[in-house]
C-alpha cells in the first residue's frame, strides 16, 4: 500500500506529443510553428531517446554524391526493400520530402559530414541504388536529436522574448509516463499519466495527441533497443481504438551479441564478416557451408579452402557463405542453436581473430574493437564473440492516413516514426528510419494543427479521470502478487523462442497461449515500495504494453502463411503474391487482440510505371499487372 498523497496536476494544451525522439521533436516543432501551444512528454530526460543510437545516416535523394539520384529511385528502392507491402503513398511522400527535411536541419545548426564541394556527404547503404545517406561519422542519430532539441530551445527563447516565459507555449515534461489516452464523445480529449520521479499523477487536456513513442524491442530477450522500446504508443493507440497494421514484421539483425550481458543485443556490424569473421558452432564446425540455398550455389563457396581464398582473390573464387543475405545467416544460426549446437548462452561463435592480425582488426574495425573492449572486456583481436539474432526494428505500427499521419478511426489521434506502420512494408532499408521520422514527424505536426483549427476545445470528465487514476493505484493495492520483473523475463523467453526470427504455426499457437497466460497473471502484479521513482512500478505499466504488442505480433504472424521481409515462416517458406494484396489489421476490444485482413491500397499508374513490368511480376499477380495501376 502506498501512503503518499496524490496531488493531481492539470494542464491544457492544443497538442500533446508523446515521445521525444526524432519524430516527436519534429512534430512538436511543426505544431509550435503553426502557432499552437504544445507539450512534449518523454519517459526519459530530454535528449536521451533511442534515436541517438542510429549510426548509419538518414536517406535522402539529394544527389550530392551521384547526380542520377532522385525521389523516384529512392521510392523504387524503398518499395523493393519492403517487398511491395509498403503503403505506396507513404513511400512516395517519404522519398519526395526527405531532402528538404535534411536541408532544414542544416538551417537549424546540424553539421553533417561534407563532400569535396562542401555539400552534405552521402554514403552507400544496403538496398540503396546510389550513395544516399547523410551522416555524421557513426553518430547521425545523436546529431538529429541534438539539432531538434536545440531547435526546441530556440523556439522557447523566442517565446521568452515575446511572452516573457520560456515555457509558455512549448514545454517538455521529462520523465513522465502516459498510461492512457483519453477520449470524450469518441474524440481525443487528452492523456493521463504520472511523473516517474514522484509517482504523482498528471492530467493533460488537449484536442490532439501525437504518438511518437518508437519501437517494441524490449518485448524480446535479445534486442538492440533501449529500455524505452516497450511499445507504449502501440498499446496506447490500440486501447484508444486505433488499429495496428502488419505487426508480424520485425527486423532482426543476424549477429547481435548474446554474451556477456553488458553488451547483449548490441549489433556486430556485417563488416566483421566482410573482413573475414567466420561462424562456428559449439562443435567447432564452420556450419554456414550447410546452409547455402540452391539459388546462391554459383555465388558462394562450398568449401573452406575456396572461401578463404576469396579474401585475397575475389575474381576467381566464390564468396564465403558467412556473407549470405541477413535472413539466410539468421536462419542458419537459429537452426544450429535449436539443434543443440549453440553456445551455452544461446548463440554461435563469430571469430575474426584467427584470420587477421590484431593490428589489422584495430585498423579496419576500430569502433567495433573499441566498443566491445570498453563495454565488455571482450578483445575481438584475441577471442571469438557469441552472437545470435537481435530484435532491431518494428515495421508494423499504428494505421495512419499517409498525408496527415492521422490514426485511422480515432479523431484527434496522430502517429509518426517507428510507432506508425505502413511506410516500410515488410522490411525497412537502413537509413530510411531517420528520414521517416523527419518526414512524418512534420506531417503529424501539420495534421494535428489542421485538426485543432476545427476542434479547438477538449475537456475530460471527472468519471474518465477517476477511472484512469484507479488503474495507476491498482498495483499498489495488491500484496503478494506477481513480480513484474519475472513476468517480463518470461514474456521475453516466449517471444524469443516462439515469435522470433523463424516462426512455425505450432510454435506461434503455443506463444499465443503463453502470452495470454502471462497477461492473466499480469493483472495481479503487485508493487513493493512507494510511488517515488520506483522502477518496479514503472515496469508494471510497460509490461502491460509489451503484452499487447506481443499478442498483436503473434496473432498477425500465425495468420500470414507466407514468408516476406521481416516475417519468416518455416512452414510457409515462399513469398506469395496473393498475400501481398493484404495488410493485417490488429484491433483490441478491451479483452483481447483480434487480427483481420484488409486490402492493401494499390499504386496509381504514375507510380506503377516507375517499375519494369518484369520486376513487378516477381511480386504481383498477373491480374494486378494487367491492371497496371489503380487509375
Amino acid at each position, binding site marked *: 500500500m502506498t501512503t503518499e498523497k496524490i496531488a493531481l496536476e492539470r494542464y491544457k494544451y492544443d497538442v500533446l506529443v508523446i515521445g521525444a525522439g526524432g519524430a516527436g521533436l519534429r512534430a512538436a516543432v511543426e505544431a509550435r510553428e503553426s502557432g499552437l501551444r504544445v507539450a512534449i512528454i518523454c519517459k526519459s530526460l530530454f535528449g536521451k531517446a533511442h534515436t541517438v543510437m542510429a549510426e548509419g545516416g538518414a536517406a535522402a535523394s539529394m544527389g550530392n554524391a551521384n547526380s542520377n539520384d532522385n525521389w523516384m529511385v529512392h521510392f523504387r528502392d524503398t518499395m523493393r526493400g519492403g517487398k511491395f507491402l509498403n503503403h505506396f503513398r507513404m513511400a512516395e511522400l517519404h522519398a519526395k520530402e526527405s531532402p528538404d527535411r535534411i536541408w532544414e536541419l*542544416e538551417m537549424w545548426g546540424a553539421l553533417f559530414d561534407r563532400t569535396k564541394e562542401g555539400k552534405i556527404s552521402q554514403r552507400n547503404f544496403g538496398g540503396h541504388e546510389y550513395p544516399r545517406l547523410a551522416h555524421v561519422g557513426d553518430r547521425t542519430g545523436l546529431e538529429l536529436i541534438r539539432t531538434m532539441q536545440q531547435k526546441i530551445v530556440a523556439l522557447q527563447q523566442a517565446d521568452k522574448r515575446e511572452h516573457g516565459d520560456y515555457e509558455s507555449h512549448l514545454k517538455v515534461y521529462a520523465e513522465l509516463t502516459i498510461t492512457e489516452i483519453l477520449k470524450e464523445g469518441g474524440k481525443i480529449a487528452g492523456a493521463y499519466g504520472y511523473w516517474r520521479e514522484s509517482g504523482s499523477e498528471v492530467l493533460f487536456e488537449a484536442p490532439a495527441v501525437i504518438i511518437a513513442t518508437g519501437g517494441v524491442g524490449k518485448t524480446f530477450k535479445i534486442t538492440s533497443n533501449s529500455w524505452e522500446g516497450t511499445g507504449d504508443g502501440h498499446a496506447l493507440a490500440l486501447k484508444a481504438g486505433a488499429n495496428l497494421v502488419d505487426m508480424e514484421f520485425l527486423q532482426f539483425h543476424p549477429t547481435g551479441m548474446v554474451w556477456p550481458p553488458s553488451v547483449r543485443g548490441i549489433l556486430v556490424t556485417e563488416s566483421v564478416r566482410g573482413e573475414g569473421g567466420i561462424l562456428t558452432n559449439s562443435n567447432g564446425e564452420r556450419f554456414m557451408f550447410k546452409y547455402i540455398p540452391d539459388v546462391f550455389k554459383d555465388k558462394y563457396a562450398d568449401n573452406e579452402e575456396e572461401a578463404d581464398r576469396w579474401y585475397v582473390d575475389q575474381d576467381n573464387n566464390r564468396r564465403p557463405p558467412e556473407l549470405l543475405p541477413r535472413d539466410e545467416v539468421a536462419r542458419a544460426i537459429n537452426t544450429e542453436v535449436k539443434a543443440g549446437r549453440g553456445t551455452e548462452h544461446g548463440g554461435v561463435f563469430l571469430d575474426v581473430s584467427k584470420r587477421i592480425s590484431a593490428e589489422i582488426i584495430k585498423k579496419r574495425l576500430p569502433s567495433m574493437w573499441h566498443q566491445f573492449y570498453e563495454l565488455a572486456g571482450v578483445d575481438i583481436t584475441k577471442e571469438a564473440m557469441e552472437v545470435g539474432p537481435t530484435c532491431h526494428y518494428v515495421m508494423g505500427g499504428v494505421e495512419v492516413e499517409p498525408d496527415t499521419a492521422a490514426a485511422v478511426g480515432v479523431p484527434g489521434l496522430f502517429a509518426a516514426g517507428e510507432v506508425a506502420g505502413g511506410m516500410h512494408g515488410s522490411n525497412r532499408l537502413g537509413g530510411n528510419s531517420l528520414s521517416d521520422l523527419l518526414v512524418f514527424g512534420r506531417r503529424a505536426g501539420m495534421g494535428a494543427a489542421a485538426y485543432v483549427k476545427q476542434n479547438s476545445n477538449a475537456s475530460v470528465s471527472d468519471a474518465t479521470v477517476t477511472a484512469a487514476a484507479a488503474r495507476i493505484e491498482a498495483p499498489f493495492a495488491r500484496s503478494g502478487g506477481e513480480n513484474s520483473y519475472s513476468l517480463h523475463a518470461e514474456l521475453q523467453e516466449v517471444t524469443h523462442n516462439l515469435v522470433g526470427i523463424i516462426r512455425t504455426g505450432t510454435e506461434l499457437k503455443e506463444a499465443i497461449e503463453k502470452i495470454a497466460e502471462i497477461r492473466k497473471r499480469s493483472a495481479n502484479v503487485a508493487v513493493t515500495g512507494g510511488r517515488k521513482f520506483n522502477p518496479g512500478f514503472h515496469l508494471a505499466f510497460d509490461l502491460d504494453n509489451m503484452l499487447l504488442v506481443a499478442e498483436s505480433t503473434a496473432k498477425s504472424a500465425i495468420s500470414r502463411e507466407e514468408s516476406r521481409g521481416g516475417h519468416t515462416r518455416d512452414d510457409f517458406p515462399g513469398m506469395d503474391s496473393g498475400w501481398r494484396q493484404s495488410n493485417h489489421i490488429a484491433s483490441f476490444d478491451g479483452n483481447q487482440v483480434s487480427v483481420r485482413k484488409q486490402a492493401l491500397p494499390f499504386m496509381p499508374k504514375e507510380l506503377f510505371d516507375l517499375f519494369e513490368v518484369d520486376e513487378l511480376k516477381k511480386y504481383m499477380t498477373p491480374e494486378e499487372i494487367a491492371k497496371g495501376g489503380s487509375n
Partner: protein
Amino acid sequence: MARKLNLRIWRGDATDGGLKDVQVDVNEGEVVLDVIHRVQATQMGDLAVRWNCKAGKCGSCSMEINGKPRLACMTQVASFEEGETITVTPLRAFPVIKDLVTDVSFNYKKAMEIPAFAPPADLKPGQARMEQVDVERSQEFRKCIECFLCQDVCHVVRDHEENKKSFAGPRFFIRIAELDMHPLDMLKNRKRTAQEEHGLGMCNITKCCTEVCPEHIKITDNAIIPMKERVVDIKYDPARMFAGLLKREKRS
C-alpha cells in the same frame, strides 16, 4: 562463472539516506549497471537508477563509482580488484531525488540561456557549402552525449552551490565554443558573453572535465582555453578590437 560481489549502494532521498551493503552475483564481462539491475530485479525492486541505451551513447546512467563520476554502463566490474567493495553513489553536484537519481534540471536551465544558432538571414536550405575541415572543430563538441559528468566533477560547482547561478559549466562552454566555431553562425560576441554571462572566467583549467568525458572531448584544450585566450585578446587589445570591427565575418 558467477561470483559474489560486494556492492555498497546509496539509498535514500533529499531528506535522509545512507549506504546499504548488498551481495550480488556477477558474471564475467559485466558492467556496474548490470549488477545494479540484478539487485533491482532480485533484492530491491524499487531501487532508482536512470539508464537508457546501455551502450555508452545516451549519457543517462551517470553516477559516482568509488567516488569517481562515471557512466555505469561503461564501467566494467573487472576493472576493480576481486574482493573489492564497489560503492555507487548519486552525482554529488546535483540534488538527490532518490537513490542513484539526481535532479539534473540545472543543466536544462543553462541550455536555455545559451543563445541559439543564428544562420545568415539570406541562406536558403540546401545552399550551404562548408569544408569538412571547418565543420570538424564544432563536430568534436557535438559528440557530447550530455551525461553531465563534466558538470558534476567541476569544482566550481561541485561543492559550491552558490556558484551555480553564474556558472554554466563545461558542457555549455563546449556548446558556446561549438556555435562560435560553427561556419554558419552569425551571432557576434559569443566568447565575450561566455566570459561575462556564463562564468567562463571562473574556470581555472584543472582539466577535471576533460578527464571524465566518456566521449574523450578535449573540453579544456579545444574549447575553454581557446575561448579564454580570445577573450583576453579582445578585452585588452584595442588594435584587435578595431580590426574586428572592420571584418565582415564575425570574430568573437
